[in-house]
């Protein structure tokens, strides 16, 4: 029970600090000039670190989903030709943005927390404050903008990878013609918007949570390790919760 209360206490403290960091990020976005070079450097980092990971994961996920859906369709209806039409809305709304978000939380979130956390424990963040550079403005803001730009782009690439892999598997396993597979009848504009909104939201939330974890690092390398773990756990949890919230809101709006 005590452990559970401790965990809850930590979660509330982390959430409050992340909200503070988020508020300051928005403040500096509105009030301080944006270092475009830093944003592009970070955008390259985010894309470079995640693109292969996202393509592979969503490619395989697309293949698995089409294989399983195709098997079920064959067993129940004796026809797998609509496998593409059935899986596409799910990929657009759910798997594309959310799996991309989880991959970025893992790859990029840990990187942000480790880098910022190391700067905290080696007093580099104090040196930034001495130099007139607020740490949130200098460290979190460029990563925030970069992730907002890159998450939707990565999600689009991921959805494409899933689509291509699903098409190949459907052709190989069930002889579904690619033209038949590319059936977008069940896809609505709202599905695309929902997917993009999720990707944008994850892009905003992941660097804030990871940056907050890094900025709250204390002690030495052990503190950096703990901050990194906190970043990946909290950011992944945030992605899942936000998926539920945005998905739920979209469902309410649709009905």
């Amino acid at each position: 029970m005590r452990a559970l209360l401790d965990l809850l206490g930590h979660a509330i403290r982390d959430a409050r600090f992340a909200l503070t960091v988020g508020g300051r990020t928005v403040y500096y976005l509105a009030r301080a000039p944006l270092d475009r070079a830093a944003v592009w450097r970070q955008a390259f980092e985010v894309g470079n670190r995640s693109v292969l990971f996202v393509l592979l994961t969503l490619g395989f996920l697309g293949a698995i989903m089409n294989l399983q859906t195709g098997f079920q369709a064959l067993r129940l209806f004796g026809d797998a030709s609509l496998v593409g039409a059935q899986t596409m809305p799910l990929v657009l709304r759910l798997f594309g943005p959310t799996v991309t978000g989880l991959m970025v939380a893992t790859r990029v979130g840990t990187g942000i927390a480790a880098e910022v956390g190391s700067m905290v424990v080696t007093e580099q963040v104090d040196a930034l404050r001495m130099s007139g550079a607020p740490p949130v403005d200098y460290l979190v803001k460029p990563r925030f903008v970069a992730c907002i730009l890159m998450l939707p782009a990565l999600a689009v690439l991921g959805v494409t990878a899933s689509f291509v892999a699903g098409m190949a598997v459907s052709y190989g396993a069930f002889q579904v013609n690619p033209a038949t597979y590319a059936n977008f009848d069940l896809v609505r504009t709202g599905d695309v918007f929902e997917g993009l909104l999720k990707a944008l939201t994850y892009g905003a939330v992941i660097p804030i949570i990871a940056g907050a974890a890094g900025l709250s690092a204390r002690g030495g390398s052990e503190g950096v390790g703990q901050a990194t773990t906190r970043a990946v756990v909290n950011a992944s949890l945030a992605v899942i919760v936000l998926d539920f919230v945005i998905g739920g809101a979209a469902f309410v709006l649709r009905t």
Partner: protein
Amino acid sequence: MIRFIDVHKAFGPKRVLDGVSIDVARGEVLFIIGKSGAGKSVLVKHLLGLLAPDAGQILFEGQDVAGFSERDFFPLRKRCTMVLQHSTLFDSMTLLENVALPLRKHQGLSHAASLEAARSKLQLVHMERYADRRPADIGDGLRKRVAIARALTMEPEYVVFDEPTTGLDPISARHVDRLIRRLADETSVTSIVVSHDLASIFGVADRVVMLYQGRVLLDGPPQAFRDSADPVVRQFVNGLPDGPMDI
């Protein structure tokens, strides 16, 4: 003038500062000494808002900074800066860019103008030929000199040096001492130096404050420190492993 008045600070159950009061006059070179963990760095970090006191006042030219917000500290940090214990240079920048950063952030200079101005500060610490290197390419001693140059870019009136000669070879250490003395003599910069280095203390200090068990044990000129009959001060001055000072 800077005044620390009855400053208290504890980290959990550990009481680090237990009512420290020190006055620092304009233009003087004050050394704060004491064994490791005595609270020297903790004390000076309060002045710049890197730590907040549990109780007490810290007056910077009459203004109590103890209740300052982070935003309030930014103008103060233009006038009073700090060379941190580790060199704390940013790995992703060249040495010149490191030194130029405060000029861009505090003064809003353009990238090119800040680099130009930073070059003269590197000359001050004889590091101009390393300007385009990165921190990882040079040794600890050289990094420390660049960190000092960065602290001086804003031409501050007060500089806090946290163990500026630790890890330096004796010649580089004496160069740093000379720089601190020159800043005081030629430009009336007030220096607060946290140090264990006896050669520095006796070479450049105007006044020495020794912290022990969270309080001021001694406050006076270097000669008073050297002549003190206090057994704790004697043990520190003579560097004796055995004595009344708790480890």
